[in-house]
């Protein structure tokens, strides 16, 4: 079953700056009150890389990771569902999902994944 994306971003109630991750004070105006928002719609890929020297905990040949911006301007890092960076381009649309991103202590850890559109 498809899981809902479990990310909360924080929109400053004073200046509108969107924060992800959370900050106790707004990065722009220092205000401490935020509206909790969830990422909306699809996303645009801002940058990406394929990592071949992976850290402990990842038993695979390589991992493609990137940063994407959702339609409501929440920006987040996630794993990319592609076989090669040749399938990717900065500015392309990607479909976000909430899926296992690694296994820790025998349990799936869920996180953001992006799949190239089309």
């Amino acid at each position, binding site marked *: 079953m498809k899981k809902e994306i479990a990310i909360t971003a924080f929109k400053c109630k004073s200046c509108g700056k969107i*924060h*992800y*991750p959370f900050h106790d004070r707004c*990065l722009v105006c220092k205000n401490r009150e935020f509206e909790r928002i969830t990422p909306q719609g699809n996303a645009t890929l*801002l*940058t*990406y*890389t*394929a*990592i*071949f*020297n*992976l*850290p*402990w*905990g*990842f038993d695979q040949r390589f*991992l493609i*990771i*990137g*940063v994407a911006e959702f339609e409501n301007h929440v*920006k*987040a*890092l*996630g*794993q990319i569902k592609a076989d090669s*960076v040749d399938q990717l381009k*900065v500015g392309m649309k990607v479909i976000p999902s909430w899926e296992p*991103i*690694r296994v820790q202590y025998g349990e799936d*850890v869920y*996180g*953001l994944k992006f799949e190239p559109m089309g």
Partner: protein
Amino acid sequence: MRDVAIIGAGMIPFGRRDEDTLMEMLAYASLKALDDAGLGDKSVDAVYVANMGGGMLQHQSAIASSLVDRLSLLPAAAETIENGPASGASAVKNGLLAVASGYYDYVLVVGGEKMREVTGWRATDFVATMTHPQVEYPYGITLPGMGGMFTRLYMEKYGVTREHLLAVSLKNQAMGTLNPYAHVEMALDRDGIFDSPDAIVNNPTSADPLHLYDLCPVSDGAAAVILCPLEMTKKLAKPPVLIAGFGQATDTQTLQERDDPTDLKAVTLAAQQALEMAKLKPGDIHVAELHDAFTILEIAESEHVGFFEKGKGGKAAAAGKTRLGGQIPINVSGGLKARGHPVGATGVAQVVDIVWQLRHELPENRQVQNAENGLTVNFGGFGNNVLSFVLKRVQP
């Protein structure tokens, strides 16, 4: 505030040092600096030890307390400074402030790291712990991965090419062959890592678009300096070097929260502060040690410090402007790329290399002729905590 000078500098060869413990490396570098300062049998007032991974990699804490005991520096004040890959410069800064304030006269600053006793997997994971623990680290992002994403953006915005990155690799590894303290003493062949069909094997992708030889090695090593007030340096065997300026600035932990992720604001601010304090301009600097953990960083930092306009650093490197004898020699030591990057040691090692340059005591094939002013940039996290020093030769 008092003017502060570096009166002793020491380093041990970086590399894989299976025979030494972390504490031994810190001790050897400290003794070299103490001897260099002519303080061999004397004590110091305080000791600042830069180290990032002792707790995680060696299962050791309170490292500074252990070091002063081993070195018979008791009852000197002692503390360990952890600030990621900028730990070394942070420790130098703390020593500088302690002496400048008048609280201590003689301070030992030593940085060291032992990273090669764990597997590459573990070392990569250890370095990745400086990323955001909820929104970055769980995804498997690494520091080279951050470098890869940054490089892609820099290439798109400024037209940096793999040829520009290659120029940095070739230069720094060539310089490493001349530096007896360097981890990597192997010159690279352009054909073998770039032009020939074998290059894909010899120089594979590490964090696209960065390749193996765009990255610094994982190293063991240590470096140390002795600080004291400039006014107390009259009877020394070696010329003191003035810490004429320093700067430090921070930025967001994640790249995605920066308005322009290609803008290394903390580098710009730290270098500006250091240069203003020293009353110098980028054009007055004769030699620089920049934090080239990845080749792109040497190029980007050379622009953010003000040596070159934004977007011109890659072409400057390719044109030889950053070589020994060029417009501004950068990383004559071989930089992190060849000298190596034992994370806690790096910021101190950069200062040691500039001290040697400003004393004019290096062999001709590494000495920047008539160098009077030098600059360092020690880059923590992915540019979220950066320190810069400007050092000046003191005229005898």
